[in-house]
């Protein structure tokens, strides 16, 4: 079946612009996660959705970052007024139930964001 898809695969933007990153999880997966991977910080958790609510958004680095999920499916991560330190690969993952119940997370190919 189809895996997790993300768009765009690459995004180059100017400092100060807003960007939207999209994630389509595997159909039927109720849990959705955003992570980012950068050279200096490794893989960092950003936010977790269960259905349309976000019980854990502790990893969002600043109020410039927000995310939403609609219909228990597609999620959008928005970064406002982008800064160069936002440059990273943004990864989305989904799972049947939260990982605490011992289900693995399936990752998408990521969006490489470059802020110039």
């Amino acid at each position, binding site marked *: 079946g189809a895996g997790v898809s993300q768009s765009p695969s690459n995004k180059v933007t100017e400092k100060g612009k807003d960007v939207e990153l999209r994630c389509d999880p595997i159909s039927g997966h109720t849990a959705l996660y955003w992570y980012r991977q950068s050279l200096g910080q490794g893989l960092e958790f950003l936010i977790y959705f269960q259905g349309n609510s976000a019980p854990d958004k502790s990893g969002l680095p600043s109020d410039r970052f927000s995310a939403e999920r609609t219909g228990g499916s597609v999620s959008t991560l928005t970064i406002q007024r982008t800064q160069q330190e936002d440059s990273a690969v943004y990864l989305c993952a989904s799972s049947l139930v939260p990982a*605490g119940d011992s289900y693995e997370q*399936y990752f998408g190919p990521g969006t490489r964001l470059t802020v110039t």
Partner: protein
Amino acid sequence: SQQGEEDPQALSIQEGENATMNCSYKTSINNLQWYRQNSGRGLVHLILIRSNEREKHSGRLRVTLDTSKKSSSLLITASRAADTASYFCATCSGTSYGKLTFGQGTILTVHP
């Protein structure tokens, strides 16, 4: 902060040899998972081991978990050039369901 710390940071071996990667973590966990990443993009789930399990096998992979030492190891037997990738351990703790905390990863290079 990174919960999992892996060693070695890089490992270079010949095809057919075994590769062992280690992961240590700091807090109690519900489960520990290992992922592989090729070319810096999407991660592929390899194996999940629960906190009440000590060892798990999947094909050429063997994972052990020692909760008393807060450590895990991933063994890849009879390695192939196609196993060349970065390998990450990730922990899921009881205080935050869904949140995976990743280690820095081990870069494995298998020479044909």
